[in-house]
């Protein structure tokens, strides 16, 4: 795992940037307040007896920092997010307060989408299968799984998924975020304790909060910190009643998309066995992309999937689809099918999406008689290693594990986040840059997402552009 803490100079510059932005932000707020400047953002003219829609100070950052960089975020696209992607060109005449479309499209190399195995295609077997299923099943079942929403394709996908992962049973839901947010409350209740990694995805945090359990946060991928918190929790018990916890859950992700790190699964499994805790593993980014046959972090480390109590994953990153799954013992899945909100209330997974996922899974497993799935997994691993090595040789500060298909390179401060993004777009390459509050204050970064659909020429073209932009940005500062 690569991690290089920012130099003092970079931290100083980043805080200098935020201080200057804050000072000018206050000047602009003052001008907007006294009518010296026309207010363009959302205004909450709430009458007295309504609760305020938002706390005006909380949108200070949005108005005075985010808006200045807003042209780099949420770009509309008009094609599949494959190796190449088409962006809708948009311009702004008032410093990103409003945009208008020029009617042009920009065809760029896509280094920003989660399309690890390159199955985001509008041709090929998966999409043909999806298109055909629209004729058979229609687009939506318009009903929850517990009522009329369960289709044959759902059952087939669940059975295939359980076989792929190597556990007894699985269930699929129509949305990745909801899989976490709605399954955790069905498994964990009030008198339980949750030990959550500090960089867990917001869907895990929301699910943990909805469950009403006590939540304690341990340092990212820090097994010692986790063990000390586990030990303390077992000794102390519930803070009020002092009774032992009903259940202790450790919730971690397989691959952390912002850091590019992989969770130390063997150590965590050893801890859960030692302290009789349960383990919830979110393989959103690793299922399909990590491991010799794409079976995720469990296979990457050669662990036994039955050692993980609840396996979760999504289909949006490697399968070119949407939705998520929970896999585990049969009784757990039966319980979730009875009591998880996603099975009672949410519309079941759309049939075309389900068929896209199922066909992709068959290709990955080699059930379609070809080696295409294996080839893509190998291609992704090769692309990842090649790209990461080149970036490090160029002098970028690169984070994370060499096996993860996400390669974060540090930019630190918000101006560089925007400048790098715009420079790369000028060179017809789309990248995703991320800044505060999605990362720590001095943690602005660009997150390259590799894909099996990228050819070596594409990667070399991207690396050359990155080299130029990195030089202009002054971010090739790795020690």
């Amino acid at each position, binding site marked *: 795992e690569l991690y290089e803490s920012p130099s003092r100079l970079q931290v100083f510059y980043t805080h200098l940037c*935020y201080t*200057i*932005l804050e000072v*000018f932000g206050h*000047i602009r707020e003052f001008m907007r307040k006294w009518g010296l400047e026309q207010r363009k953002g959302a205004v909450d003219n709430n009458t007295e007896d309504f609760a305020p829609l938002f706390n005006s100070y909380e949108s200070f950052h949005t108005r005075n920092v985010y808006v200045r960089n807003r042209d780099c975020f949420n770009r509309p696209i008009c094609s599949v997010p494959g190796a190449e992607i088409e962006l809708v060109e948009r311009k702004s005449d008032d410093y990103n307060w409003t945009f208008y479309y020029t009617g042009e499209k920009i065809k760029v190399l896509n280094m920003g989408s989660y399309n690890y195995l390159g199955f985001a295609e509008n041709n090929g077997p998966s999409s043909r299968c999806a298109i055909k299923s629209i004729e058979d099943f229609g687009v939506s079942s318009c009903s929850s799984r517990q009522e009329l929403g369960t289709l044959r394709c759902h059952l087939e996908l669940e059975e295939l998924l359980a076989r792929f992962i190597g556990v007894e049973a699985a269930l699929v839901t129509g949305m990745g975020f909801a899989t976490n947010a709605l399954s955790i409350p069905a498994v964990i209740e009030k008198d339980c304790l949750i030990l959550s990694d500090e960089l867990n995805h917001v869907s895990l945090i929301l699910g943990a909060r909805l469950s009403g359990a006590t939540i304690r946060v341990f340092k990212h991928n820090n097994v010692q910190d986790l063990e000390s918190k586990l030990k303390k929790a077992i000794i102390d018990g519930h803070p009020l009643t002092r009774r032992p916890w009903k259940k202790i859950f450790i919730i971690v992700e397989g691959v952390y998309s912002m850091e590019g790190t992989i969770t130390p699964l063997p150590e965590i499994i050893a801890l859960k066995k030692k302290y009789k805790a349960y383990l919830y593993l979110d393989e959103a980014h690793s299922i399909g992309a990590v491991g010799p046959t794409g079976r995720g972090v469990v296979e990457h480390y050669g662990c036994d999937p039955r050692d993980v109590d609840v396996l979760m994953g999504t289909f949006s990153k490697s399968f070119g689809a949407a939705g998520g799954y929970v896999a585990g013992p049969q009784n757990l899945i039966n319980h979730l099918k009875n009591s998880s909100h996603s099975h009672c209330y949410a519309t079941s997974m759309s049939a075309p999406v389900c068929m896209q996922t199922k066909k992709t899974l068959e290709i990955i497993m080699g059930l379609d008689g070809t080696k295409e799935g294996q080839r893509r997994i190998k291609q992704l691993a090769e692309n990842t290693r090649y790209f990461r090595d080149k970036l490090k040789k160029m002098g970028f500060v690169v984070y994370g594990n060499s096996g993860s298909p996400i390669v974060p390179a540090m930019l630190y*401060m918000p*101006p*560089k986040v925007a400048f790098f993004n715009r420079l790369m777009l000028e060179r017809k390459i789309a990248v995703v840059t991320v800044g505060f509050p999605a990362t720590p204050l001095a943690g602005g970064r660009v997150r390259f997402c590799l894909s099996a659909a990228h050819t070596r020429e594409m990667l070399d073209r991207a690396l050359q552009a990155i080299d130029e932009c990195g030089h202009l*940005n*002054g971010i090739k500062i790795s020690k």
Partner: protein
Amino acid sequence: MQYLLNTALYMLEPPEIKLFNFIILVVFVTAAYSTYIFL
């Protein structure tokens, strides 16, 4: 470019950039003037 990026001027609008540079200039001129006086 590094000056614009490291002081976030790159994100500010032209009037704000002029205001900021003017303040910096005033600070440097007074510092130079005081140095001259005191030395």
